[in-house]
């Protein structure tokens, strides 16, 4: 199969496992990483870098029952590393701004991830992985490298705090 010989070529086939993984998770991964950074350009880069590793190691990663588990963990670590490196760069003058939807599409998933980003990063990640995606609490603990107790606590507290954020955000009511 051409995919794992020398180079990868998109097949355009939605059933192709790698392309299916990319279609299913590339956008979700961006929304997930938004909980840690408001720099969408950086997020885009990290997501592509993570998928590049997945592609290079596809024979191994495709064996996983849920390759998504590895994806979210690897992307999170990559982003942290990039943020750490940037923290060592010379600071530049900037005035903090409200993040903007880079897609200009008023897309619901982006808008909600912007709201999730108002929570502490780890709490937002727990909510995203356990409530937006379908990872179990134990899986979330494994992906994030935290205790099950923390996942359960953050899940409970996070939902409460997110509800408050939603109320403050004054989202349009259904049918409005």
């Amino acid at each position, binding site marked *: 199969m051409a995919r794992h010989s020398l180079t990868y070529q998109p097949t355009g086939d939605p059933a192709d496992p790698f392309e299916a993984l990319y279609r299913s998770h590339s*956008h979700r991964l961006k929304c997930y990483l938004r909980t840690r950074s408001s720099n969408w350009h950086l997020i885009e880069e990290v997501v592509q870098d993570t998928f590049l590793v997945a592609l290079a190691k596809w024979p191994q990663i495709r064996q996983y029952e849920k390759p998504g588990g590895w994806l979210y963990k690897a992307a999170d670590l990559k982003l942290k590393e990039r943020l750490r490196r940037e923290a060592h760069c010379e600071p530049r003058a900037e005035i903090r701004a409200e993040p903007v939807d880079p897609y200009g599409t008023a897309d619901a998933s982006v808008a909600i991830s912007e709201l999730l980003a108002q929570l502490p990063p780890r709490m937002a990640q727990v909510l995203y992985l356990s409530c*937006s995606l379908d990872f179990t609490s134990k899986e979330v603990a494994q992906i994030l490298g935290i205790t099950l107790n923390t996942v359960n606590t953050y899940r409970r507290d996070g939902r409460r705090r997110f509800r408050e954020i939603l109320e403050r955000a004054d989202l349009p009511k259904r049918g409005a």
Partner: protein
Amino acid sequence: MDIDEILRLAATPPATAWHDAQVRKGLRQLEQRHRELRRSGRDPAEGVELADPLRDTDDEAARIARQAELAGLGTFTWTAKTNLLSWSNRLARMLGFGPEVTTPSVPLCLERVHYQDRELLTHQLEQAWRTASTTEVQHRIVRDGDEILHLHTFVEVLLDDADTPVGLVGTAQDVTELVRNQQELARVNKRLETIISTVGESLADYDPHTGLLSRRRFVSELDRAVDHGPGIVLLLGLAGLGEVNRAQGPEGGDRLVEQVATALKRVIDAPGRLLARVGGTEFAVLIPGVSMDGGAAIAADLLDVVHTRYLSAGRQRLDGRVGLVEYGQGRPESGEDLLIDADLALYEAKDTGKDLASGVLYASRRARRAQWRERVEQAIRLDRFELHAQPLLDLATNRVTRHELLLRLTEGNELVTPSSFLPTAERLGLIGEIDRYVVGQAAELLATTPADLHLQINISGGSVGDERFASFIEERLDHYAVDPARLTFELTETALIGNVTAAREFADRLRALGCQLALDDFGSGYASLTYLRSLPFDVVKIDGELVKNLTSNKGDQVIVESIARMCAELGVRTVAECVEEAGALERLRGYRVDFAQGWAVGREIPVRDLFGTQKAASRRARHRTA
């Protein structure tokens, strides 16, 4: 919609063709990068943990410690039953302990915590233990005597199978660089705000070209002077500068104005006398304790100075007119009113062809207003207003995609700049008629020009506060069937002062209509940032004084780049005004400024020359819409 539904939406990719295209593009990019990596032999997975985290069978503490190590974090574990603490080598190094310390302990750890943070950290740990919850705390570590490190510590409670707390596990990240950068960032931002305020203050009080007082400052000085006895106010208007500007560029006009200012200073130089530049071609003089006769003599001296200047190559002399008024005749006059009266006198001088006209002091605001209304109406009726267009270059595409409409007033053979007449029109409540005139002309123009032409027009504070003005705009655009997205309204900070609520309503209405809004002269005032945060601007125009010397002034470079970055973060597009050097264009492009405007891009041209005769265009439009 319940919270679970909303959270699930966060993981629902948009079902749009645009999203599909993004996915395809992403896959193509991966293909290309993968091919390049194969060719170069580099391994993108180097240093990346590839194990499946979901198959991890370690106990919690071991798993957390291992993952933290991978992420470059220090870890510790404390067991309640034994009160034993263990830490990773990385954490030991963070705390400044060498290999000789073989028995970690809680007191040993706390000893290294900065004394001001110790209580907070202890409290957080105790609370986490008591409530079996998780806590995060940022604190300082003091090691090797005086070295301070900032750590971010994340502490979790370990539970046994019966959910009883049995210990703590913590990860610590060295965030010293991050904290230092944040502190430095705060300092730089503070400095930036100070610079902007300082620049704004000096611009507000002094004319940057001549160093003379500004109109604002002059009026304020005049207010004080009228309380201390009689005197005179002279307003000197120069004629012929337009030709210099056309022939030599704005630098030529600026040079001549600077020369005249220097010469006028010598005539006026005496204690108590003040000289100001109150408009592009107008100077005002305050002389206390002098009568009208004395004032006329000084006016003659001033005109002599003007007449000795040549417009170009010694062929034609600079010309001028003077309006003169006396104050302190028993009536309380404000500085602004006096200046308006002097302006009316100057207008009379121009109209009658005299060098000097002595004005009357209008007894009431109503009388002044009537006089000025006649002037404005006459200007509209006699086509004395003229619209000029100056191009805006889209720096990303290097194409002119917009024009700003600039209003000029023709009096005699002279083009008068707006700074000479708009402040008075605004003060007397006549600005609305001028704004309506401009909007009407712009709408007509858009109706008669190609659909890709975009115009930017200036709106005064008076119109922003006029509830009927937005309706007028809507009606005009509708009348000419013009796409509102082709029009941007520029508002200055001055127009917004005291008007924010009205401005908000105005802005909302215009944006609902589809028009765009620009914040003009950004960086020239005190509160630009406040307005940028509180009003929905689409465009910010960076004040020309910050741009003019961009290639040589390091301070301006820092400010302009920062404004551009800030606006990009806010999703607001930027225009650099007064771009006069070709070298500045590349720099602005590097700063990701969106548009450039100024002589390096293109001069202002009468609309009739650029788009065909304005009147003819208007007639065509009327014919089409009839």
